């Protein structure tokens, strides 16, 4: 494996992590959007918020990781993509700002109408951001990004069949993964009605995602020939098939309420789609114009990036695992009973013991 391939593999690892973890956060926002009026939507929204609250910022960093690695290892491809696909990138960026800030603000809005306003900001941006990022993927995959400073078409580079496929697929897959994961969170926090609420949604969105992915094969065949021949000439097709099988498995598992299996299969299906894309497009960075080797930075830089990745693996990954373990076990779930040795408990004990008397306000 060449150095450039190794770094690209690291980047792809980041893309997949962002698609799964970040995607689930976007999906949560999409279900928030679809949860109906404030009364009906109150409990699902509360559950969604509790599920993503502690993790969304960390999940978001995967995107930054990908961008930074891309511009360092493949600078020419990076600026070509960013300047040609300026419009959808900008819209995705605005979506990211709206989403994160609305999410943080919503907690504090006392009046329902403000809460709704921030809720809509958060939820609408959760739809918009993956959609536009998906159109970017489609623009790249279908070979619409030439090399150069804004060399491609500002509009058709992302308003085209493959981009629409990419955008739609990103949205439905995000919704599907989120529904699968949230169904499990609901079951864990003893809210069986919500578990079945999200189970239904997981089934529906899973079927839709499967249909979109299937239709996508035909879109790619006519609109992204380089990618399509890559898929048919190599074992990429087999990976796409694996995605289909995993997707079907997860649907059956959801139906049978095998929650652990459904989670794993849903993640495998998502990973396999991205993996299939990578194999299909190999060895092109930008189909037909720039290969991985041509686009790569010099070896010293690539080595430095791999060193940085080892640093990340040593420092960030254990912390990340701790965070996911805490959330996964429900230890950070605010709806669960309070332990007795926490900071909050300490504060309450002190107040109860009368230490508050020194507060003269």
């Amino acid at each position, binding site marked *: 494996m060449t150095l450039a391939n190794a770094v690209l593999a690291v980047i792809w690892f980041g893309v997949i992590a962002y698609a799964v973890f970040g995607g689930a956060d976007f999906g949560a926002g999409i279900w928030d959007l679809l949860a109906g009026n404030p009364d009906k939507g109150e409990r699902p929204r509360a559950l969604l918020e509790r599920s993503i609250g*502690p993790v969304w910022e960390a999940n978001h960093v995967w995107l930054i990781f990908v961008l930074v690695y891309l511009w360092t290892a493949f600078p020419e491809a990076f600026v070509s993509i960013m300047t040609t696909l300026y419009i959808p990138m900008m819209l*995705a*960026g605005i979506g990211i700002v709206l989403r994160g800030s609305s999410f943080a603000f919503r907690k504090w809005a006392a009046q329902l109408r403000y809460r709704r306003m921030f*809720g809509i900001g958060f939820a609408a941006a959760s739809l918009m951001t993956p959609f536009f990022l998906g159109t970017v993927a489609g623009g790249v995959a279908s070979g619409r990004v030439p090399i150069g400073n804004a060399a491609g078409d500002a509009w058709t580079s992302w308003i085209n069949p493959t981009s629409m496929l990419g955008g739609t697929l990103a949205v439905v897959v995000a919704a599907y993964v989120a529904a699968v994961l949230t169904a499990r969170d609901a079951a864990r926090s003893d809210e069986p009605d919500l578990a079945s609420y999200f189970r239904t949604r997981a089934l529906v969105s899973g079927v839709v995602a499967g249909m979109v992915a299937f239709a996508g094969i035909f879109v790619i065949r006519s609109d992204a020939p380089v990618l399509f021949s890559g898929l048919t000439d190599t074992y990429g097709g087999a990976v796409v098939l694996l995605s289909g099988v995993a997707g079907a498995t997860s649907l059956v598992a959801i139906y049978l309420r095998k929650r652990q299996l459904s989670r794993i299969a849903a993640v495998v299906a998502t990973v396999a789609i991205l993996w299939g894309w990578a194999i299909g497009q190999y060895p092109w960075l930008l189909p037909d114009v720039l290969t991985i080797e041509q686009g790569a930075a010099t070896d010293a830089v690539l080595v430095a990036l791999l060193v940085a990745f080892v640093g990340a693996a040593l*420092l960030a990954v254990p912390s990340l695992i701790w965070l996911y373990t805490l959330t996964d076990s429900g230890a950070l779930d605010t709806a669960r009973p309070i332990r007795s040795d926490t*900071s909050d408990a300490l504060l309450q004990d002190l107040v109860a013991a009368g230490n508050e008397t020194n*507060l003269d306000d």
Partner: protein
Amino acid sequence: MRIEESVVEPLLAVVDANLYAARYQMAISLGFHIILASFGVAYPFFTFLAHYRGYRKRDVVGLRLAKRWSKAMAVLFAVGAVSGTILSFEMGMLWPGLMGPYGDVIGLPFALEGIFFFIEAIFIGIYLYGWNRLSARVHLFTLVPIALSGLAGSFFILTVNSWMNGPEGFTIAPDGSITDINPWAAMFNSGALVAWLHMLLAAYMMAGFLLASTYAVRWLRGNRSSVTRLGFLIPFTVAAIAAPLQVMVGDIAARALMERQPAKFAAMELLPDTRTRAPLTVGGIYVDGEVVGAIEIPLLGSLLATRDVNGEVPGLDVVPDGDVPPVNVVHIAFQVMVGIGTFLVILAGWFGWSWFRRRGPPESKLFWIGASSAGVLALIALEAGWTVTEVGRQPWIVWQIVRTSDAVSASTGIVASAIAISALYIVLGIVTIVVLRIIARRMDAGDDVHTPYGPSGTST
């Protein structure tokens, strides 16, 4: 005359809407992000001090403050993270002529910074949601990685900026290609350490004075509770220690600049001609190659810059025609920064003196009025400092290597996005302040528990 013309000419040559729109958009985005980023660097430390005191001394006040500050921290971090993300987009979208040829040279610090973004985001999630979930001890110490990764993250980003001001770690071959790239040498460039220290102190000063000033206002309004007192003392003390150090580091930075970027230095000091026994120019503007309306303090310019009244100081005449930065902007911004820095040192000195004499903050109302304004002033100084650095580097995006006009994107729609970003940030800035005030009010009323759509009675 000569110099003024040369400022106008190249600008006319590149009357290119994209250049202005892109610079403006970059300035807005960075100017916004840096405020939040500084909070991200310094705020966890203040929270740690309060929380640690609360935990060790079983002190209600410390714990109360830590809890209160953690609520604000959640909002500030969220806005900081998303505003930073847009910046990483913009580096590529707006400046392909920087990121295309040099993205690989300066990518390493960004990649390393990512590690610390992860750590910061992970532990902030755990701390914020751990108030009634983790053991009190573990919970307290989750603040430590947050504070440390703020230090590390700011170092890495500053290495990039100081590289733009003094590029190292590569060679340009005769055919124009970039060879011998050494990303480690580029990262550990010779300006990085001073720039980082100066930025770090600025972050502690801005966040500290700003946080303290909210309590100073309460104090002026007659609220002398122990919460107000401690809430003032913790951040103010840290910022007051940073203030004199900042002037020292700033002085080192300025003298280094004389060697590294004489054009910026001359603009900062508003000195038309290279000379010995140079005066210090206070105020004044530069019109047609002449300094108008300035107060000149004899010899001080040379003394400060070279530690010798006979020392030679570079003037704007060392700068080739066409490469002179916008002199007035740089000079005014520099004076604002230094003026505020001096004021803050005096304020800190007053506080220190009073503490030395009577173990308490000054009683004088004047002090409290000063303290109430210190936060906003520190913020202005920080923005002014960045204006010096960035505008003073013009017309180069990478000092003497890449011109900003050669780096800018050719995409259509940059003007539109610059407008959209401005509108977004104006609204976002206002809403952030409103939400922070709501948090303060709600915490005052003892109503810290509220999940938006949550089952009644649960807390975050």
